[in-house]
């Protein structure tokens, strides 16, 4: 006798094999849709099951999610257009990353995808001019705090986040795909050199580099919150275009282990068609899988210990221990001091 399928496992099953939606009873849909929202995968699920016979009340929620994703896509492309226009004087195409790149390039990974900020990659040498151009065009710093600003500029692979004062949309300007403090050293110049122009002053990474970046982003950024969505990006990119060149680019960017782990996890969770060498998950990856599926039908995180370990680990990956200790100490002290200063 097997244990009951959890709502998050049901969601993963529907993403893998959407026809299962037809047989899913109405009473189970509330949990599945709640989990899909919590994982930012509702639009993706809606696009996967589009056209299948589901109960009318479920169909309404899914139709809403598709409409919302379409609006998200339109807004993301408009924002990219505005950024390209602002940065035109640089004389180089602006490389889009993540969600905006997927929709701009018309990739399956972009179908139904939630897109928050606009993420771009430009050469580090152009940063001062780019900052000035963006400021002229209406982007402002979000973080007024001098420590945060200094922290970003000293230790991060991106500028402090910008927000457009009229459109209220966030822009992340990257000059690399991992912080300089991370152990792997991706070759930002090679990423930029290999990018593929889309026209309109925009470009996207080559497909293998896109997969490498998605893998780096999956593990390096945050504590695997949003992991299922980020892993879906990798699954959809490979499902549509295959894996050719991914190992070579992973090696070039010092990310072979990261990419291998991402491929094994994608296969373990989404049955992604990866090369045979990546079809068996390690014990550690079973732990990753547990972390990524740690959510109940109310959308709440489960397994607090597993989550806590991954939270600490995410910081340890990004910073050497002494730097991490200093950073957490400063943040903690500022957290304590904040109410008194208001």
């Amino acid at each position: 006798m097997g244990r009951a399928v959890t709502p998050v496992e049901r969601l993963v099953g529907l993403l893998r094999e959407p026809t299962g939606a037809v047989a899913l009873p109405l009473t189970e849909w509330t949990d599945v849709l709640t989990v899909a929202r919590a994982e930012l995968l509702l639009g993706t699920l809606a696009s996967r099951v589009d056209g299948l016979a589901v109960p009318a009340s479920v169909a309404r929620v899914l139709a809403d999610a598709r409409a919302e994703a379409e609006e998200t896509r339109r807004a993301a492309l408009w924002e990219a257009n505005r950024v390209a226009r602002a940065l035109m004087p640089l004389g180089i195409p602006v490389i889009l990353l993540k969600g905006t790149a997927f929709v701009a390039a018309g990739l399956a990974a972009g179908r139904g995808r939630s897109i928050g900020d606009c993420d771009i990659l430009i050469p580090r040498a152009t940063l001062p001019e780019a900052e000035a151009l963006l400021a002229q065009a209406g982007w402002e710093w979000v973080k007024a705090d001098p420590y945060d600003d200094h922290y970003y500029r000293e230790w991060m692979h991106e500028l402090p986040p910008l927000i457009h004062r009229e459109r209220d949309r966030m822009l992340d300007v990257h000059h690399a795909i991992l912080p300089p403090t991370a152990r792997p050293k991706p070759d930002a110049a090679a990423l930029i050199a290999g990018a593929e122009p889309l026209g309109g002053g925009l470009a996207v990474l080559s497909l293998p580099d896109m997969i490498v970046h998605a893998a780096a982003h999956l593990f390096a950024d945050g504590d695997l919150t949003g992991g299922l969505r980020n892993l879906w990006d990798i699954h959809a990119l490979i499902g549509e275009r295959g894996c050719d060149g991914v190992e070579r680019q992973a090696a070039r960017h010092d990310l072979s282990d990261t990419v291998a782990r991402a491929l094994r996890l994608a296969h373990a969770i989404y049955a992604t068609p990866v090369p045979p060498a990546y079809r068996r998950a390690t014990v550690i990856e079973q732990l990753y899988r547990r972390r990524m599926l740690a959510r109940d039908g109310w959308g709440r995180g489960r397994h607090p210990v597993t989550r806590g370990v991954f939270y600490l680990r995410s910081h340890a990956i990004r910073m050497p221990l002494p730097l991490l200790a200093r950073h957490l100490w400063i943040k903690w002290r500022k957290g304590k001091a904040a109410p008194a200063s208001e």
Partner: protein
Amino acid sequence: MRHHVTLRVGPVGFRIGSDWRDPIDAVTALYRDYPRADFADYTVRLEATSPIRRRFRPSIHIAGDYRLPEAAPLPLAQGLLAAELGMNLQMALGHRRHLLLHAAVVARDDRAMLMSGISGAGKSTLSLLLARRGWRFLGDEFALIDPMTGLAVPFPRPISLKNESLAVIPPDSHTGPLLTGTPKGDIRHVAPDARAIAAMDRPARPALLVFPRFGFPSASRVLPPAEAFVRLTQASTNYVAMGEAGFRALTRLRAEVPAVALDYPDGAAGVAAVEALWDAL
């Protein structure tokens, strides 16, 4: 979650879960006459701020599909208010199927009057008084405009009355508990009459837009289309998020429905004024 209820209001199913029994009991009692549902469009969670706080100085954190991270917790005694705020949040942050206007809606013969205004403009009080005079109550918090048909879809949640307007609650009403000392003062929820709930699947065609202001000498002014449009965009919580569908719904409403700004000094004068406007249509 340990305690929960799933119910339907108009076109929307809500699932409300709680770490404690009391808030769910309060919701169940107030929503006694609403249908229970097998499916929820939105989930609201009323959670303890930490495991210890479930029992010791219990304090409700409002979460769900959509949430405001900086929202302050409420004491357990205000559980019903937490549930209502949670439901409003899901709609304001998540709902895209209808254009949402911060407005009260009442109808006669399936023709609707929308009353839009800031908190304190008297929307709830006016809609309660009008319902007592035979108008059908469609909602006092959100007007739901179907972008395809332009119709106002009923969303008849319990009416939330505050402070001095508590005095207008008729004694035979089905109400929730009096909630004192909330962030907005004293609050009591009044369930809509049985007729409003029975007709909650029957939409109405918008026929008049009123922008009331309570506490001013009686005055009224027909709004030019551009001003009505701007006021409606300000009254909508999802106009921007809906994109073109929101724009089309709003321009249609503005084009088809006359709009009036109305100042009134007290409840009786307000009711008389909106009924006069209605009769003059």
